[in-house]
């Protein structure tokens, strides 16, 4: 339990040290960043076993605990199943991305600042996941967001600056909505601890105010998650960033800032009672699913295409979670993990192409399979995963989501669930079509004469891509009973609903 604050202390300390020493000692940035992410991954894997034993753990920062009859007077950190799932997801991807960055970021100047900002973004994300306090969540959300605004513009080309500006404006508006929501919550409940808020809200009942707060949070976090009416910034921002950062942004940042926060607040704090909110979430999810993939079809810029697919895949996750049934939530969370893995793999692959070819235009590629076998094969694995081809992880999670839709249809008899299931299948087919295009133009076919001289990317970049591809294949096993508790604990944490508060209170004693 003492280890909980280290999820924030380690990356923060690494950021400060890299910024202090990086200029003086060569390579210290590379080494420190990799040690940091490696130890974070170790900690987060350890947290799985902790969750398995204790279910919920609470850490009181500063020793300020609960005062009877009043509530928590300090900030607390909470570790439960959902937290540990998110921590593992974030830290797996970030470790592989830092390994990849060692070589890739040599294209850019001032690697020290890159690593500093990267570590700060990681600290922000871990802070969001681990906290049990609403305002603390906002503060760490801002750290992660500001670091990502700066990282998107890291190349300082005109397009990147423009994309970053758009992203920063949208992100700041979203933050203002979230802060306004927090202010209303504070005024209504007079506390900021999530468990206490949940307690007070359950005593006071709902009304126009709670619905208004829910809408503010939905708009704010929806903007951060790039759900469809609020998605305008994502197709610009994600491709503009350097490839490792694109992988982080699409892979984990939108999930932590957007989806995790929505899940935590709507399920555990406000409570499922507002089913109208959940149906809005599902509708937005279905819309994102279709709109993202349709917009992706006509793209020729590889990274931009991937960015549109991120919108679509986030839609799947939201649809699964919005169903609110155990099967739907399981599918949604499993898809969240899978999408992190294969989308970061795809972005790293596109970065590898960019690294050797200096272009992202699919029309100029072709036949790269001969010259870059590792990139091509890992990319094939990831493409089949995202399109939902049977042995890979993407298939299982999409199948679970579609089955959950059908199950809800049978149970409630509402036609809308069937429509969502059909939407999900359609989206999956369109995704397959889109990635067949990628494979055809980039890796198969005739080799362009321009690229006769190219070589495969450096070994460390290959290593991280191969590991990610291996996870794509292996993570299907998460559904077998031996490994299922990892996902099942997260599902239970969400299904607990407002029972979250009681679990926290009893763990805090």
């Amino acid at each position, binding site marked *: 339990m003492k280890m909980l604050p280290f999820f924030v202390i380690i990356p923060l300390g690494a950021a400060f040290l890299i910024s202090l020493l990086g200029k003086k000692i060569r390579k210290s940035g590379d080494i420190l960043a990799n040690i940091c992410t490696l130890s974070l991954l170790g900690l987060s894997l350890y947290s799985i076993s902790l969750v398995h034993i204790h279910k919920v753990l609470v850490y009181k920062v500063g020793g300020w605990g609960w005062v009877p009859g009043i509530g928590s007077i300090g900030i607390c950190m909470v570790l439960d199943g959902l937290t540990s799932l998110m921590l593992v997801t974030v830290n797996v991807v970030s470790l592989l991305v830092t390994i990849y960055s060692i070589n890739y970021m040599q294209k850019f100047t001032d690697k020290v600042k890159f690593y500093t900002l990267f570590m700060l973004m990681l600290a922000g994300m871990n802070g969001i996941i681990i906290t049990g306090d609403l305002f603390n969540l906002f503060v760490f959300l801002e750290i992660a967001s*500001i670091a990502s605004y*700066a990282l998107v513009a890291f190349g*300082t080309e005109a397009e990147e600056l423009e994309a970053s500006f758009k992203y920063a404006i949208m992100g700041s508006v979203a933050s203002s909505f979230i802060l306004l929501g927090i202010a209303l919550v504070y005024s209504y409940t007079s506390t900021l601890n999530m468990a206490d808020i949940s307690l007070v809200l359950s005593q006071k009942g709902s009304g126009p105010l709670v619905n208004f707060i829910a809408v503010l949070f939905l708009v704010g976090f929806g903007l951060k998650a790039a759900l469809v009416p609020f998605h305008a910034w994502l197709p610009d921002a994600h491709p503009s960033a350097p490839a490792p950062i694109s992988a982080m942004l699409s892979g984990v940042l939108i999930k932590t800032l957007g989806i995790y926060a929505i899940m935590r607040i709507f399920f555990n704090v406000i409570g499922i009672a507002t089913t109208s909110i959940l149906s809005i979430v599902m509708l937005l999810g279905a819309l994102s699913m279709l709109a993202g993939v349709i917009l992706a079809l006509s793209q020729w810029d590889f990274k931009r295409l991937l960015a549109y697919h991120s919108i679509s895949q986030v839609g799947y996750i939201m649809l699964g979670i919005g169903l609110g049934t155990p099967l739907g939530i399981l599918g949604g969370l499993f898809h969240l993990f899978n999408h992190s893995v294969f989308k970061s793999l795809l972005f790293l692959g596109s970065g590898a192409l960019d690294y050797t070819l200096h272009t992202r235009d699919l029309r100029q590629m072709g036949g790269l399979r001969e010259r870059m076998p590792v990139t091509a094969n890992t990319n094939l694995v990831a493409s089949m995963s995202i399109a939902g081809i049977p042995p890979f992880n993407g298939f299982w999670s999409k199948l679970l989501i579609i089955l959950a839709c059908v199950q809800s249809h049978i149970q409630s008899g509402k036609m809308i669930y069937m429509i969502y299931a059909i939407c999900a299948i359609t989206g999956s087919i369109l995704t397959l079509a889109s990635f067949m295009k990628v494979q055809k133009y980039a890796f198969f076919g005739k080799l362009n004469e321009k690229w006769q001289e190219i070589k495969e990317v450096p070994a460390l970049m290959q290593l991280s891509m191969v590991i990610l591809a291996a996870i794509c294949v292996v993570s299907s096993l998460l559904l077998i009973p031996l490994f299922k508790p990892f996902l099942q604990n997260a599902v239970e944490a969400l299904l607990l609903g407002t029972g979250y508060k009681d679990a926290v209170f009893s763990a805090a004693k």
Partner: protein
Amino acid sequence: MELNILLLFMIFSAIVAVQVEDLLSSVIAVGAVGLGLSLAFLVLKAPDLAITQLVVEILCLIILIRATIKKDLPFSTSGRWVFNTVSTLVSIVVFLFFAYFALRQLPRFGAPIMRVAEEYIASGQEKTGATNLVAAIILDFRGYDTLGEATVLFTAVIGVLAIIRKTGRIKNEES
């Protein structure tokens, strides 16, 4: 009463800041909003915030003026100006309409609930040793937040220094 007057002053200055064509005047008008905010904090018995807001306002103004000075440009209005403006205004009115009903559920102005706050007021000095309760909260009870806040500023500094770099990429012979 004086609070309402201050708020009206801020709204008036904000409208001026939004609508005036000259960028420098606009920046100065937003400075007036910030000054009004600082005074409002004083009226609301928040001297810590009044000081901080005042100095931050000065810094923001200097930075904004450095950015805008001699870079004045004519404004362009896009083709569907009327339609867009009307639709934005309508959605804002709808937002305010719902906000009104939501706000009616809040505790009356001037009578907050103060569950946790009473505990801080009653025993904050004894527990932390600080007589300024705001300092006691930001640096002891909620010190973790302040670590985050300081990190935000650190991030912004590194971010600004990263964005300001002259060249981002190390150019190869063929790009």
